[in-house]
């Protein structure tokens, strides 16, 4: 009885809800991944998106303006990333990390400067996104209705974006060029496709979705901003992107897994398991699954990584042999 009551419609609904933000940001990262850019700056873009969405919402009293502000802020970060990485050829990881740190610090100090508080912004007239009611859903689906009904708008955006992205990569010219630039830049160059332009566009598209993801975090179910509220979702998205290679369907699968683990851990908490352990569950589950999935397709890389680690360790053990 106890165990069974863990799994129910509510859990599935929670899964979808938890999946949405990470799905949005990961789909954004799919653009840069496909364009051959390793974008570790997703976390920061999402965070400024969340913060400025709250600011915009307070100032204007409109959730929609809030979302627009969040997206604009994320786009500025994405543009900065593109300028440094694409135009100035700076190292992607360094720039991404730097922007993440900047995002974390900036939101904290702005919060202090504007609201005089640390920690979180609650109340203060934040207007959240309304829940979408689909007419007739309850009549047709009955108790299953919450599976498609009553989410905030970004949840729908996230899931609808998946097939759209599939279509985008398959059937549109821009999507095709993004793939070509990532896979074989010299082919793009030879055909007169501007690598720089395509990579800028990909970075900005990424910023757009990351901003939406951020806005969803702070204006979706809970209307508040807390320090570092993206809490590693951007990094999880990066992990999912590495394993999925930016393929929208695989991204969806990875994100659903994470969302499920997240929802499940919340549920476990209500059953009184220690919360610190449980908060680690989604990350552990997702990483383990991703590792297992990718082991099949890339056993060689993993074997070689293990081997080189072994070598490194054995060098440490026998320093005398090193200089012979």
């Amino acid at each position, binding site marked *: 009885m106890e165990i069974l009551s863990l799994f129910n419609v509510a859990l599935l609904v929670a899964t979808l809800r938890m999946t949405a933000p990470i799905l949005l940001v990961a789909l954004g990262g799919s653009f840069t991944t496909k364009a051959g850019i390793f974008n570790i700056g997703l976390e920061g873009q999402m965070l400024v998106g969340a913060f400025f969405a709250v600011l915009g919402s307070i100032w204007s009293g409109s959730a929609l303006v809030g979302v627009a502000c969040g997206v604009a802020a994320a786009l500025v970060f994405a543009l900065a990333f593109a300028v440094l990485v694409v135009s100035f050829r700076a190292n992607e990881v360094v720039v991404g990390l730097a922007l993440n740190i900047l995002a974390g610090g900036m939101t904290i100090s702005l919060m202090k400067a504007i609201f005089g508080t640390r920690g979180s912004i609650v109340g203060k007239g934040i207007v959240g996104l309304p829940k979408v009611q689909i007419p007739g859903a309850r009549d047709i689906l009955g108790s299953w209705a919450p599976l498609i009904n009553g989410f905030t708008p970004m949840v729908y955006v996230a899931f609808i974006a998946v097939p759209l992205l599939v*279509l985008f990569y*398959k*059937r*549109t*010219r821009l999507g*095709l060029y993004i*793939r*070509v630039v990532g*896979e*074989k830049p*010299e*082919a793009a160059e*030879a*055909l*007169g*496709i501007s690598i720089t332009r395509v990579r800028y566009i990909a970075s900005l598209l990424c910023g757009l979705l990351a901003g939406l993801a951020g806005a969803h975090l702070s204006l979706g179910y809970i209307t508040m901003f807390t320090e570092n509220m993206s809490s590693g979702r951007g990094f999880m998205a990066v992990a999912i992107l590495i394993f999925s290679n930016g393929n929208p369907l695989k991204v969806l699968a990875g994100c659903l897994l994470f969302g499920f683990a997240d929802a499940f851990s919340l549920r476990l908490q209500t059953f009184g398991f220690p919360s610190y352990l449980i908060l680690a569950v989604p990350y552990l589950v997702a990483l383990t699954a991703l590792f297992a999935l990718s082991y099949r397709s890339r056993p060689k890389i993993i*074997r*070689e990584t293990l*081997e080189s680690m072994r070598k490194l360790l054995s060098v440490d053990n026998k320093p005398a042999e*090193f*200089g012979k």
Partner: protein
Amino acid sequence: MSTTSPAMTAPEAGPAETAVELIGITKRFGAFVANEDVNLIVKRGEIHAIIGENGAGKTTLMNILFGLLQPDQGTIRLNGQDMVVGDPATAISAGLGMVHQHFKLVPSLSVADNVFLGMEIRRNGLIDHTAQIEKTRELSERFGLKVDPEERVSLLSVGIEQRIEILKVLARGARTIILDEPTAVLTPQESRELFQTLRGFVAGGMTVIFISHHLEEVIEVSDTVTVLRHGKHVATGPTSELTKADMVRMMVGRDVSFDRRPREKSDGKVVLDVKNLWARDDRRLPALRDASFTVRSGEVVGIAGVAGNGQTELAEVLAGLRPASHGSAMLKGRDLTVLSTSEIREAGLAHVPGDRLVRGVDGNASISSNLLMGRQDKAPWSRKGILDWRAAATQTVEMIKRFDIRARGPEDTVKRLSGGNIQKVVLAREFTNEADFLLIDQPTRGVDIGAQESIHDEIMRQRAAGRAVLVISVQLDELLTLADRILVMFNGRIMGEVEGGSADSERIGMMMAGLEPKNVSDEVAS
């Protein structure tokens, strides 16, 4: 412009029937002069070959013609009209098309997508894959270039990749087609098919310019030859009036010998012992079937065969790049099939891969970094685990000299080198490794005639030093000059073995075609 042979006539043609005229082209890279006052006149409807040593400036000249590089001096005239070819788009709209030395296809896309990349057929704003496939099929049938438009490029052989590159050019309406070393990656059979296609092109009024290091095929297929040497134009004239020896002399400035290398019989210890080796290809089909052979110290064993008959897979298994599905390959008592690539190198393998740009070098790194790769923890390149860049630089300079790598210096980026010189970088690194076993896949692919000779010299020197050498080549001539024994592969099997000295090319040819099954001589099985 100097003329070194009486057979040469001054290139002269009325504007109406010239497809391409390059006049007084000079191109410098820094202080280095890649093309110096070069003239090239190509008549419409001819096959015009350009020959010259590695680094002679052939590719550079073609890149200028195609708008990929801008000349420092000189005029380009296309179809009798002066043009400034600022970019490839201009060249394409003037009816030029170029098939590059290194292909530029996107592996994950279909053939049709690659053909129409950059000029997609769209309906309602979306790419119309069906129409692209249809159009590709049409083109492929019209010009006799057989491809399956729906197949993914990553699954295709190089020969077919080249057809796609040619289709790309045709789809853009080219009337003059430039091919940079088109046969370097082809099997003799594929080359013959290509020549037939090219003949068809010129018969239809098109013009072909092609670069090659294989003088036999230049003689066989071209109407006119232009020779470049050290960036300068040496001569242009009708092919029929030149012999191979003439061409070599004009290219290299001396005579080059291609006779079988003299040698003493060696009977060293067995270094490599391959037993019942099986492996699968990328599509998981058996590609190597039950191969057994040995290579002894001080011996050169050649593997002949039409490309795609398991040679690549054999090389990859031995180098640890592909798992064996059955069997063993013992290198001095250690089984290569269970070792990782780095362990295999330690066990004593030096490997010159067939695809140098993918597995041979890091194109974006300098020559010295590339030569350093794999020995970053060995003296004299490093001491106590710390790289000694000064020692590395001296080593590099020495190797550049010994292998005659034509570059501006050890810090030159490898990607910038000419194709043949990139090959020399790989050879220099692998041949100086002191490994007991040398695995060389296509040693002289894309390498000029003078350098071919010196690479062959180097292989013979390795043999004399007691190394065991396995040479895989689609160039039968090359194996006949080098090998002590030749194994012939067909459909993944070793069909048989012939003595290098008494080599009977007819018998080898039959085995390459899969005709003499199960006639493996006793030595092979041992």
